[in-house]
């Protein structure tokens, strides 16, 4: 049985910060996923941190205000492990990621 799940949750009930979740389970195994931290900054919702699978390999992207991304791969982890790791990272550090992005925006002005 294959199931697809997609939802959002405000982070700590913040009106301008949310966790977006997507995963596909096939016979109990995570075969696809994408989780991300999104922030509303200057009236616009932006993807700030994302964990997903590209070309079948789980990885992390941190978005920068200039449009570039910093990538990190996890070669020895399963999809489910990276998804869990990403959930913990987003839950613990979303405020720091938000501040970092805003600092980058200020430097560019």
């Amino acid at each position: 049985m294959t199931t697809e799940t997609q939802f959002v949750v405000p982070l700590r009930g913040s009106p301008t910060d949310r966790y977006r979740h997507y995963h596909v389970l096939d016979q109990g195994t995570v075969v696809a996923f994408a989780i991300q931290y999104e922030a509303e900054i200057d009236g616009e919702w932006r993807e700030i941190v994302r964990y997903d699978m590209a070309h079948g390999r789980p990885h992390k992207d941190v978005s920068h205000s200039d449009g570039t991304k910093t990538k990190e791969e996890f070669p020895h982890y399963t999809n489910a492990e990276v998804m869990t790791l990403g959930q913990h990272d987003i839950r613990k550090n979303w405020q720091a990621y938000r501040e970092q992005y805003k600092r980058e925006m200020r430097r560019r002005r």
Partner: protein
Amino acid sequence: MNSLFEEKYDELFTEFNYYVLEHPEFAERIPRDALVVLLDKNDPAFNRENLRRVKNYLQHDDNPDRPVLYVQVGRLAPVKSRLRDLRLMTREPGYAI
């Protein structure tokens, strides 16, 4: 109130993410792209604060048609270790050197 609310919120958020992975028949019932709101029937103060914050969030949401799904948390089971297959050793194993 703030830090107690936020600690509980984080705990429920973490446990909900585990739950949807472990219970696909439950996860299937979540409307696509829904806003999930976690509630505890036994904690009215938490619920009041969470619903207040959700109202605030919905004023910022970029999807005015997003379905809202209220999830009543039944019980939290006692915490159990996830460690498996532990071994006790009196010398450093070769792989750790």
